[in-house]
Every structure is written in C-alpha cells, then in structure tokens.
C-alpha cells in the first residue's frame, strides 16, 4: 500500500511542472470590427465612482473611463493638450487660465457639456469633507471663501460664451496650473445636471456636500468612452459603449472590470484568455513573455517604491536622526533588490523626481551604494552602541528594534520586506515584519497615527513633477500622503508652484534643490521606479501602450477584438 501511496503522490506533484500551454488560433482578417467585450483584471475592489472622493487606483481605473477632464497629456510627449477642451490659454502674467471647450461635446444623454459642469466639480471638491484634492485650488481666487461658506460659488471660476469657455483666476501664480486644473481637482468632471438633485452648489451651507449620495456609486451619464451599467460588489463592474463619445463611439461594446482574489488569479485568467489585458508583477513577466497567446509590453511608469520612516514615533526615537536614516539607506542593497525582485524591470531612484519626468536630474545626488561598514559607522556616530546580541543599543539603552510593514497582497513588497529584515540584521538593526491588507495599511500609516515605524509603499504620480501632493506640510493630515510629516521643503515647493517664473528650466532647478534635500535628509529610503508591465491577449488590436498615456487608454475607442 505504501508503494501506491508514494506513486500517487509523486505523480500528482510531477504533473504540475510539465505540460505547456496550448496556442490560441489567430485568424487573418485585418479590418476593425465593432463589438465584443474587453475584460480587465483588478486585484482590489473599487471604493467609489465619484472622482471627488477617489484616492485609490482601483476606483480611478474605472471612473477614468466615464468622466473625462478638459485636458490630457499627449501620449508621446507628455505635453498638456486639449481633450474635452479644444484649447487653453494661460495669460502672460500666469494669473488667468482660459479653457475653450470643443463644439460637439455632450454627455451620454445628449445634454451639452459646458463650463458649468467644470465649476460645479470644483465647488464639489471645495465643500467635500472627504476629498484629498482641495490643494489644487489653493491659489484660485475665492476658493477658500467658498469652502468656508462665505460665498455661494467660487468667485475665481467663471464661465462665458454660453458655457463654452471656463476662466480661472489665480491670486498668485500657480505653476502646475496647466497640468492640474484640467480635471477640476477631481481628475474627472462630473455632470452638474445629474448631481444637482442631491446637492446644489449654490449654497453657503457647508454642512451639505456631495459626499453621500447613491450616484457616487452609480454614474448616470458619461463624457468618457464608456457609460456605467452595473456594479456587483466584490465581483465586477460593467461599462457599455458611449455612442456619443466625442472622439467617436468606441468599437468595443462592453468594458468589463473583474475583481480577482490576488495577482496569481489574474495571471491565470490572462493565460486562459478570461482577461483581455492587465498589468502584471515583475515575477511573472518572463514566464508570460514566453507564451505565444499573449503580447507583452514594457514601458516606463510614473510610480515608485519606497520605505517611509516615521520620525515622530516615541518608541523609535532613532528615526528622528538623519544619520540613522542614512545608515538605513546604506544598509540596504537596493541595486540587487531591483535585479532580483524586480528582475531588472525598473530603475533605482534617489529622490522624489522620477527618471520619466522632465524635471529629472540626478547630478549631485548621493547614490547610497550598499555599504554595511558605512551604515554601522553612521549608527555609531549617532550614538548607538553595539550590544552583545548583535543589535545596536540606542542612546537611551533601548535596542534598535522596529516594525516595518507593507501590504500582504504585493509579492514584490513582501519580498523586499524579508530582504530588508535580513540585511538590516547585518547592520545591527532588528526588524519585525508586519503584513496588512492594503486599505488597512494605508490607514495605519498616516501621519497622525502613532503606531507605525517603517512602511514599504509606493506612490503613483501624475506627469507633473510638482512634489506638493506628497511633500508639502499641508499634506501631513489624517488622510494625506505626507505620512512622515516632512516640512523642510515648503519654501522650495511653494516657490516652484507659485512662480512667478513657471518655465521648465526654473522649476527644474528648484525641484532639483528639493530633491537634493530629500536625498540628504532621507525621510524615505527611495527604492525604485518600476516599469509598467502590461500583457494583452492576441485578439486585442489597436492596443498600443505609450509612456504618457495614463494606463494605455489613450486610444481605447480604437481598440477592437479580432475573432
């Protein structure tokens, strides 16, 4: 009987390693055909379909297709060009920005899209209690007054020519204006004529806002290529073709977003053709590239990975010391991590600005090459003394022991955490790893929270290199992204934001100064800028990822499925 047992068990395990994937048939027709469904695989459920409230990539991945903004980045050059707006013009003093809308743009129910929608969206942002986008309107005349309930509208935003133009007046020069104003702060413009039944923006009552209404989960109309059809929580979101889309109705009739348990499930779905296109983990890139049923794309991204250190945790007083933070940077072999965990599919970064941004300049930045000896020297310089158990003791006698946490569903990050634990042990720092779900993690590691010490996370940036959203002291709040409470860069940040010199050269210089500061102070151990890895099944045609194209969706109306 034992023989049977062993044989059975062995055959079960052996079967796993073998058997290649069968190839999918491909036919010959080349003329685009209409119809079909595209399936996109997400590993996280959406939280909202209201751009004003949205702060996670899953939600924006969906409403991005429903609510468009006035401008977008040219897919090839990254320059800001018109989308729902035909053109825009910034006055020479930088204080007036005028958008002229396109002629033929309507909502999917036929109602004309006007500047009133833009103004309504901006006002929704300013009165919302849950948004993180108010910062966009810092320099806009009348925005703060409106938020405080002193007026019944944002004075600095006016519409003209029957709603065909939108003029924004700034009290001070706002350098990223052209890049950031197009989406009215929210990133997508919402329909006034639909939302107004829930909230009338013309009011001074600050208790009312757009935060709680059913249409936040069920968009009624769209300016984007797809219209919302249904949402089954935990399962999928269905969008259908918007016939009135201003660039022409999409060829695809249905866009289906499906939620999977984890990234392995998504890659499995990709392999069997259940999912049409999706981003993948670096660890799967090589294997998927070998399949001839899929097409792989690799291009630079606007996101990074970092380890954030909390300097205000009383239980880890050493994190307030610059020398210690630098030691932590020297003590991590980032280059090998990128080679082995990202499989070389990314670049190392040493400060906030990414290599893909026009303001990138790594001259004068400390590259913090892996150096255990130097790390220990710095720790000792800061006052640490080596204990008998191989762990340093801080000046107060406590062992240098702390938690680093990250989200359990990211294979990349959990692996980096394990590597960090091992490598920091070499420099006499004891690390306790902690894994959480992503929503819980982001809440646990806010600026105001006392319990966290180190966190491995990433930021997804827009194309403009303005560090405001992450590094300005105003963003150190219960919901903001400035988790470590960085406040040394305010002056520089404001300078590149408020001008008056908004030229790229000037801003680049100032941003670089800020980068140098970040690089020296090391509030984060900056890790990598990972490439975007996207795969699509062979039938998908017209799919052409470009670096500045916000998820490859720049020509989604031209995608079609070859059958």
């Amino acid at each position, binding site marked *: 009987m*034992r023989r049977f*047992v062993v044989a059975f068990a062995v055959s079960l395990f052996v079967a*796993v390693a073998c058997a290649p994937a069968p190839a999918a048939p491909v036919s010959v027709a080349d003329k685009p055909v209409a119809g079909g469904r595209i399936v996109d695989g997400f590993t996280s459920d959406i939280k909202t379909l209201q751009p004003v409230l949205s702060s996670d990539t899953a939600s924006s991945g969906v409403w991005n297709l429903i609510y468009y903004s006035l401008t977008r980045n040219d897919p090839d050059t990254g320059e800001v060009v018109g989308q729902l707006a035909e053109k825009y013009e910034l006055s020479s003093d930088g204080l007036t920005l005028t958008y002229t809308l396109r002629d033929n743009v309507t909502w999917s129910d036929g109602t004309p899209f006007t500047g009133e929608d833009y103004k309504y969206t901006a006002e929704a942002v300013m009165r919302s209690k849950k948004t993180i986008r108010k910062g966009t309107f810092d320099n806009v005349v009348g925005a703060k007054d409106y938020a405080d309930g002193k007026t019944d509208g944002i004075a600095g935003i006016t519409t003209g020519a029957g709603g065909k133009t939108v003029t924004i007046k700034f009290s001070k020069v706002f350098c990223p204006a052209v890049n950031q104003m197009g989406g009215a702060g929210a990133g997508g413009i919402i329909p006034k004529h639909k939302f107004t039944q829930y909230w009338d923006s013309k009011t001074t009552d600050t208790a009312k806002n757009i935060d709680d209404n059913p249409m936040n989960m069920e968009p009624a109309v769209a300016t984007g290529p797809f219209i919302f059809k249904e949402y089954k929580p935990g399962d999928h979101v269905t969008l259908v073709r918007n016939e009135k889309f201003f660039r022409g109705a999409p060829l695809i009739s249905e866009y289906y977003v499906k939620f999977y348990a984890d990234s392995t499930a998504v890659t499995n779905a990709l392999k069997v053709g259940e999912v049409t296109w999706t981003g993948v983990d670096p*660890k799967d890139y090589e294997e998927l590239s070998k399949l001839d049923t899929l097409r792989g794309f690799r291009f630079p991204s606007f996101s990074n990975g970092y380890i954030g250190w909390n300097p205000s945790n009383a239980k880890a007083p050493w994190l307030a010391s610059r020398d210690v933070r630098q030691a932590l940077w020297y003590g991590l072999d980032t280059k*090998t991590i990128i080679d082995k965990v990202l499989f070389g599919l990314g670049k190392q970064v040493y400060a906030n600005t990414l290599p893909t941004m026009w303001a990138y300049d790594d001259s004068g930045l400390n590259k913090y090459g892996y150096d255990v000896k130097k790390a220990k020297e710095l720790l000792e310089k800061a006052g640490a003394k080596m204990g008998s158990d191989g762990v340093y003791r801080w000046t107060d006698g406590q062992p240098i022991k702390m938690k680093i946490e990250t989200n359990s569903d990211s*294979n990349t990050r959990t692996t980096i955490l394990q590597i960090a*634990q091992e490598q920091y042990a070499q420099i006499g720092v004891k690390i306790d*790893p902690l894994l959480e779900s992503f929503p819980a993690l982001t809440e646990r590691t806010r600026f105001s929270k006392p319990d966290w010490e180190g966190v491995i996370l990433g930021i997804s940036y827009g194309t403009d290199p303005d560090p405001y959203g992450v590094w300005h002291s105003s963003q150190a709040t219960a919901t903001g992204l400035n988790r470590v409470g960085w406040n040394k860069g305010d002056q520089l940040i404001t300078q590149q934001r408020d001008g008056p010199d908004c030229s790229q050269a000037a801003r680049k210089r100032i941003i670089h100064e800020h980068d140098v500061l970040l690089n020296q102070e090391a509030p984060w151990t900056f890790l990598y800028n990972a490439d975007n890895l996207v795969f699509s099944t062979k039938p998908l045609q017209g799919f052409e990822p470009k670096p500045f194209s916000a998820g490859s969706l720049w020509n989604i109306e031209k995608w079609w499925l070859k059958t």
Partner: protein
Amino acid sequence: MAQAPALPMDLAPVERRVAAGFWSDAFWRLRHDPPTVAAFAMLLLLVALSAGADLLADRVFGISYIKQDLFNTYRKPILEQPSWWLGSDNLGRSEIVRLLYAGRVSLFIGAFGAAVSMTVGVVLGISAGYFRGWWDDLVVWLVSTVSSVPRLFLLIIVGLLFRLDPLSLAVFIGLLGWLGISNLARGQTFALREREFVLAARTIGATPVRVMLRHVFPNVLPLLIVIAMIDVGAIILAESGLSYLGFGIQPPVPSWGNMLTGATQFLSRAPWLVYGPGFAITLTILCLYLIGDGLRDALDPRLRGAK
C-alpha cells in the same frame, strides 16, 4: 481543513481495572502489523530530522535557515551541494534546511495543539460525565456553542486580532479541537461511573479526583491516543490552511504550511519548491493516520474480527 470527525462508534469500555494484560496484548498486536510499524518508523525519522535541524544545519549543510543569498535564487536541486539538495527559494535560502526547521515548527504546533485539545477535552469530558448536574449542563452548552461556530471563521478572527507565534497558534487551534474527545470521554464516563469498581472506590472514600484519575481515565486512554494521532494531523492541516490565507506563521519563520503557500506562488519559475513541503505534510499525516488506525485495531479487539 479536512479534520476527521469523531469516531462514530463507542469503543466498548474495558471491563476491569486496567490489567497488565491489556496493554501488552495491544503492544503485541501493534508490533505485528507491518503498515503501522513502518509508519511509526517513518514518523520517528521525520521527528528526529526536525529535532536535529540545528545539528544538521551546522554539520551537514553549513548554512542557516534565514541566510539569504540573492545571487542564487531559484536554484534547481543538485547533488553536489548539500544545501541545494532541494534547491533554493526566491531569496536564495536553502530549501532543505528550511524544510527541517519548518518541520520543527509544524510538528510542534501539531503535537502541542493536540496536547492542549486532549487535556481540555479529557478534563471537561470526564468531569462532566462524573459530576453531572449543572456542571454537565454547562459543559454540554459550551460544546454545542463552540461546535456551531465554523472552526476557520473563529481562527480568522483570532488571527486578525493577534500576531501568532507557533506557541499561541498551537494553543488557539488546540482550544478549538477538544469537542470530539470531550464528548467521547463524557460518554465513557457515564457508562463507567455505575460500574462496580468505580462504586467500590467511592464507597471506600476515594476522592472524586482520585476516582476519575485512577479508574475512569485509564479506560479513556486508548481512545485518547487514537484520536490524538488524528488530531495532530488535523492541526498541521489547519495550520497550512491558515498560512494560505495569510494568517498562519509569518515568514521568515518557516512552517510547512507557509513554505507550501510560498512555493505555489513561484510554481512556474521553480516547481521543485512544492515537493519538499508538500511531501512532508502528506507523508506526516499519512503516517499519523496509519498509526492511528493500527492503534485502534490493536486496542479494540472487537474490530479485529471485522478486519
């Protein structure tokens, strides 16, 4: 979580004070049952290997279980290098050394958890059966309450609230598994408490504890041993299920469960990584099952006839 349900039949209570004959009789039967002996030997080997993990790591393999080697990740198994007999994992650690340490963790959790289960179950079961009355009612209520909550649901809540190291994990899983033995012990105690030898002991003034310990417990013992074997297996499986969900033993501490889960994520890149933990778990549970079977056959003459 394929935890075996409690045995459906009553082992007939042995009719006298445990006489010398019963145990040596059983032992004889055990010795002459090849599958059981083989299983026992295999299990002993596994335990020995795991216990000797430190020694082996030092002498034979020359590498510790947490030592990472990022330049040698996903190595295929090769014979020349002992530490790579089962290859290396995604962080370049020695798979075989980790497997040995993981054996320690998993076997410990299984054994300790089963010990907790058995202790709680026996104490509650026998005392409930002996004292009856309100205590019995309480125990029965406790049993029906806990058995109505799906085991994994409870474990998830616990895993959610606390960071679990092997010891506390073993205790928690053990605390959920005592129901079966408790019921059986209680049933046995009911039958036994009216027997002459128990009544005799009570007449001469033996304290309840003494009666329970010296007269009731030995008769429950055979059943206990059999169930314990199955329980250890069930706990090891439960631990691996928890690891899959992310609530079990956290890396870098290796357990067979979390090694298996980890290996499944790299299946396309390094399929050989599942063999070690997969085989280890399956083999251990097989052995435990066979031993349990053999023990049951040896200890209950009534069944021998049917086999």
